[in-house]
């Protein structure tokens, strides 16, 4: 078991790399599957020193629901931001910095949350606090910064906490 853990430090990454290779070659043959799996074994093994802790997921199936919510939000975000950019004069816009305190603990979950914030309505994650307990988020137009913080915590962080922790 211990040897297996050393040889395959990140099983999820192995599967993901295999899938990536098969999709990249776009040929559904055993050839590309085997070579992809070989890369999937080799790359996590060689990059092990840079990612020493194994990632854990409590409820991986909830990822699908999360992806759909985020995709939907991205489409909405594009329309909302486009409307602000085109129709709202600069002096009426209220840009704001918002501090989002984090309940998430694992680096992977925080990374996903920060990425999600950047991709969704009018927010960009700009920094993390020195101890990793809060995110600094910049809002394009936020008359009510507290509402933005609550929405991020309710909509994304709660779901990520279910998935990762």
């Amino acid at each position, binding site marked *: 078991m211990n040897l297996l853990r050393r040889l395959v430090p990140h099983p999820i990454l192995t599967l993901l790399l295999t899938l*990536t290779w098969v*999709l*990249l070659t*776009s040929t559904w043959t055993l050839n590309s599957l085997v070579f992809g799996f070989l890369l999937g074994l080799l790359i996590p093994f060689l990059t092990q*020193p*840079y990612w*020493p*802790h194994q990632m854990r997921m409590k409820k991986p199936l909830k990822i699908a629901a999360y992806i759909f919510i985020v995709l939907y939000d*991205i*489409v909405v*975000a*594009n329309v909302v*931001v*486009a409307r602000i*950019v*085109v129709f709202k004069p*600069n002096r009426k*816009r209220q*840009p704001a*910095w*918002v*501090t989002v*305190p984090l309940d998430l603990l694992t*680096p992977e979950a925080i990374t996903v949350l*920060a*990425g999600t914030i*950047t*991709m969704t309505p*009018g927010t*960009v*994650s*700009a*920094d*993390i*606090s*020195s*101890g*990793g*307990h*809060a995110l*600094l988020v*910049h809002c*394009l137009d936020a008359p009510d910064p507290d509402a933005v913080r609550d929405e991020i915590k309710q909509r994304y962080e709660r779901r990520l906490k279910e998935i990762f922790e």
Partner: protein
Amino acid sequence: MFSEYLIAGFLIMAGIFGFVGSFGLLKLDDPMSRLHAPTKATTLGVGGVLLASMVHGFTVEGHLSLHEVMITLFLFLTAPVTALFIAKVHIHRHQTPESLPKAGDDIKWATHDVSVETAEPKTDGPDERHG
């Protein structure tokens, strides 16, 4: 015939959002707000071109192409990282700990904190510090 309208529709949508993204860069008046326009509007801009490409591949050339899915995936992985880098540079050069909101219990934001070890998990290698 219908698929051609669909492809044209996706391309027009892509064009509009791509244009709005570039227009936002010009119109918005502070550096952090400028970051919003290209990170968002271009997602749907590029997404529209990719959807059009997939529909074209499926209906006209008759095979399902999944390269577009990969491009979308890589785009979603890289766009937040570039945005974060630009934001960090901005904080380094134009913001002070006083001009930003409080960082909760940790007192400082990571970009401003040069004294304390950050929350990165420690590795076994030697601790090399630059700057």
